[in-house]
Structure formats: C-alpha cells, structure tokens
C-alpha cells in the first residue's frame, strides 16, 4: 500500500480578507477541516514557502477556517499581497489544541497580548457558544496601542455575554482611550481574578509570558492550572524537523498548548 504524502498540502481558496491592524490581516479560507481550538495549520504560499498559523475561529462557527497573520517575514509578506479568490496550500491541523473537556465547569481567565489573542479567540468563541458548560469568563487583552488591538468588532459581543468580563489595556495612555492603561501583568494585579476552580489561558509575546507567570502564581493559580500556547519556528508540524524542541517535547506535536507545570523549566 502506498503511503500518503504527509507534506502535500490541500488547496484552499481565500474567501475573505479583513484588515485587523496596519500589519495584521485575517484570512478566511474555504476548507472543511475537523479541528480543536488551539490547533494550527501550515500555510503554503506557493513559490514563497510555508509558515505555521493558529486557527483563530472556533470550530463551532464553520464552515471554513480563519487565520490572522502579522506581516513579519517573507511568507507573511507574500500572504498579505494575496487577494480574495487566490489559492493557498494548507497542511494540518497539527498540535494538541486546548483540553476543552478539562475546562468544563471552571472559571476561565484568558490573558492575551497582541496577536496572541488569535488562538484564544478560537477558544473564547467556543466557550461562548457552549456558555452553560463553563463558569465565569474573564478576558484580559493588551496591546502596545489601540491601533494594535485585533478583533475589535467582537468586543461588544464578548462584553454582553453572560457572566463575562472583558478588560482591554494599552501600554501607554492615548487620547480618546477610556479603558485600562498598563502592561498585562500589572492589570492582572489590579483586577485580581479568582483562582478557585479557575484555569488561566495565556498567549502573547515571550516577554509578556515571562512577567505574567509569576503574577498568576502569586494570585494563587497553581502551575497545572495555567495553560499557555507556545510558538516556535515550526516547519514540519509533525515532530520531525527538529526546530521546536522544548525539553523532550515538540511544540508542534506535543503542544502547542502546555500547562506551565510542563514547561516552566524550559521557558526562561
């Protein structure tokens, strides 16, 4: 029997593009895919290369998948130049995704920084669509400036949802900004979310993760109750190419979602 080519992507047409911030676009693709919140795909822009992106919409809101891409390097630049109707290659989904079953009947604290909201948005909308399965939902979302906040049109919906609180923050005070000011760890110290029966789910730049973890521990969250979704230069997505080792774990295959207890020795 011939083995299937694990590197061969499926073709997917771009059906919508939304400019989230000056350098972040959300691409909607026509593709039927069975996945969990927190999983990622390898995007192929033919002629330029592949890059991994998390799926940012909830599986409860199909059909099609959405990925938010910040223009940073060669592949993302090429991706930003694509138009509706263009075709990309998709491999995946890869990774473990969030342990949604273990989150049931818990208070959930989402902590996001910048584009780190993308994987959390998938889970936030998943939780809101199955609201009765979870206790309170608290979302702390920070960005460098108000221009860098993503998924702005969903904030009013999140705020209105049952037993759900949204805290928005920017690093420095701006004109016409009425929400909070300060980096994410400081905001957490101010709002003091409950730690009993709670799980914290953190995603953001390495520097935010580094300073957020001690604050969460101080607030009483145990390392097992802090989940984070990590990113590294994942090429193959299947635990072979050797880039994303973190201890004996491959971020692409064993992660990208880990508890802080699993990775605290390796994240410095």
């Amino acid at each position: 029997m011939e083995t299937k080519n694990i590197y061969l992507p499926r073709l997917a047409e771009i059906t919508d593009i939304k400019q989230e911030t000056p350098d972040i676009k959300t691409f909607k693709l026509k593709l039927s895919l069975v996945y969990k919140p927190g999983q990622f795909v390898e995007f192929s822009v033919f002629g330029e290369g592949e890059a991994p992106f998390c799926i940012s919409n909830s599986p409860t809101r199909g059909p099609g998948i959405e990925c938010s891409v910040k223009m940073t390097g060669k592949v993302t630049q090429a991706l930003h130049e694509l138009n509706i109707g263009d075709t990309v290659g998709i491999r995946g989904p890869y990774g473990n995704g969030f342990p949604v079953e273990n989150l049931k009947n818990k208070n959930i604290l989402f902590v996001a920084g910048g584009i780190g909201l993308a994987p959390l948005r998938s889970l936030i909308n998943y939780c809101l669509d199955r609201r009765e399965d979870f206790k309170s939902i608290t979302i702390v979302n920070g960005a460098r400036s108000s221009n860098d906040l993503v998924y702005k049109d969903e904030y009013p919906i999140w705020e209105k949802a049952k037993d759900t609180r949204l805290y928005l923050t920017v690093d420095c005070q701006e004109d016409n900004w009425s929400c909070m000011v300060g980096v994410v760890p400081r905001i957490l110290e101010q709002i003091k979310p409950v730690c009993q029966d709670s799980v914290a789910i953190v995603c953001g730049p390495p520097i935010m993760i580094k300073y957020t973890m001690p604050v969460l521990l101080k607030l009483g969250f145990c390392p097992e109750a802090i989940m984070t979704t990590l990113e590294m230069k994942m090429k193959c997505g299947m635990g072979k190419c050797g880039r994303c080792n973190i201890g004996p774990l491959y971020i692409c295959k064993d992660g990208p979602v880990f508890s802080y207890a699993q990775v605290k020795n390796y994240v410095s």
Partner: protein
Amino acid sequence: MPALIKMTLRILLNRVKTDTLLKKNMTKFIKKEDLYKLLNSFLKDFEIIGPKQIANKGIFYEPLESIEDLYLGELFAIEPAKKFFLESSECLFHSGFLDGKATVQDAPLPDKRRIIIGLRPCEAKGLILLDKVFDSEYKDRSYINNREKSVIVGLACAKPDKSCFCTSMDGSPTGSRGMDVLLFAVEDGFIVEIYSDKGKEAFSSLGKEPDEHQNKTLSAYKQKRSELIGKNFKVPGDLSPIFESDYWDKVSFPCLSCGVCTYLCPTCHCFELVDEGRKMYRCNDGCAFSNFTLEASGWNPRPTKKERYRQRVFHKFDYFKKIFGENLCVGCGRCIRHCPVKMDISEIVSNAPSGAGK
C-alpha cells in the same frame, strides 16, 4: 501520570521497522571472487551502492557502475549512507497552475530496488533510529520507499577507529541490528550471516555452509572486535538537572557552528522545507546553525552556541531517550574524526557534571 502514559503509548505506537526476520540466522561462507561475481549478476536488476575509494578524497558511498570499484577494506566512509534514505535535498511535491487554477502533485518516487553494501553495524543501527522518526505516527513516504526498496548488506568492522564508541551506545562492531545480511571478512573470503527474508532472497543461493574452523573464526571475530573499542563510558540517565549549567558555555566555546557534525551523523535528521517555486524540497538542516530556529520577528530561542550545542547533546542523549528509550547516537565517531576544532562528544557527555543522574 498522563505524560508517562503518553510516552509509553508513543513507544508502543512507533513500531520498529524491520523486515521479516528469519527464525534462525543462516550462515554461509563465500569466496571473495564469488561474492563479486554474485554482485555483478545483480547489477541488471538492482542499483548497487557501496563504498568506493576516490583518489585524494577518501571513501564514499556511491552507486557502483562496476563491482571492481567496491571497497570492502578497513577504512570508514566519510559520509554515512544516510543520504540514500534521507537525500540531502529531495523534492516532495510539485505545485503549479492549470487553466488558471492552482494544482499540487506528489513528486514521483524512484522504483528501482537497491542493494546497499558495506554499511557498518553502527550505520545500520542508525537507520533503525531514523525509522522511529520517519516511519512513526506521520509516515514519510519517500523515506519509507527508500527503506523498502533497499537490501542492507553490512560489513562487520575489522579494525575500529580510535574515535569509535559504538559499545557505549549499546552497539557492537559486529552488531546485526538493521542488517539484512552481514559480511565478516576472513582470510580467503567472507562469512555471511543472513537475518531477513530480503537477505535470504538475494544471498541464499550461493556459498556453502561454513566448516568447523570457519565457525570458530567467526565466534572469535565477534568476541575480539568489541575489545578493540578504546572509548568506553556510561551516559548519564537524565541530563535535565544540568540544563542551565555553565558547562555548556565551556564545552561549546570552540564550536565554529560549521555543522559538519550534523551532516556526517548517521542519525541527525533535522530538515528544512524549501519552496523553490513549483517544487517543495526537504533539505538537510542542523541545530548548529543560528538561523535554524531564528524567527521572522528576530526572536531566536537558541541565540548562542551554548543553547545550540546543548540542544545537540540533549536531543541525542536525553530527549530522544525519554521518547524512544535509546540514545540518538550510534557511536560511529564521525563527528569526532571530522570536527575542525577537535570537539569530542563522547568526552563531553561522559564528563558532564555530577548533577546529572547516573
């Protein structure tokens, strides 16, 4: 202990790829000229790959046009035969446009059967380790095709090099793991041990049963060769307690980040996926290079030689062992023999500070 269960499951799921092994090994004696005649007769049905002496360069595995070029002496090939299983650059799929629509298509797989002769026991064991990565949960079809199409005819080491340390890696200069057939060079020919159906199919027709004297020679050969390995050490059971140690700064200081150790290693398998426009390639890559983990944002999780060399040692002697139960090193000594600054991974591992669990 979900992590432990997961690890055990993974070990069970990663079935070790071996061809159907014979219930009982077959042993034959074959004269050198008869072996060469047999190989000559295979040339029309098989591609024959073996070590060849190239003037002013050394020994290299190459497809042989004439069996006269086959070198079955004591010297080691510079590169491992890994390149015939994981090519240094290999097309995975084609992409293009047809009638204005994007298309993708599998790259064709080579069809010809091959005999790879002259592999040393360490290298054949290296293939078993690579099977755990490429013939596991996600199966790499081109690697598997290369494995299935190849008969491995090994050559037991007559004279191990001073940088060899296979016995410390649970191997042996006469080890049969990963072999279909193993040749032992004796005075006037070869004693041939046949382990698998594939080997039997190719080699059982020739030669005769060894006589008593030859059988004695074989058992003495097997016993003596392991004693010739000079380097013997025990790898610490768990290196994680010294992950943050200054030791890695010290030992990685001379490293030039040239990556020759990764290219010449029979078990190093890290790769890059490169889109060349209409063709996607899987190309060799290595943890020695700073851009291996460099992200587009400028962030590099392994920014200096310390983190990169530590990754090499930990991947081989800690992480792989935790996942698959054995070291990702076969002790062939290539990275020691060819390192431009004489770094010695066997010394680095055996001298690791005592914080590491034994």
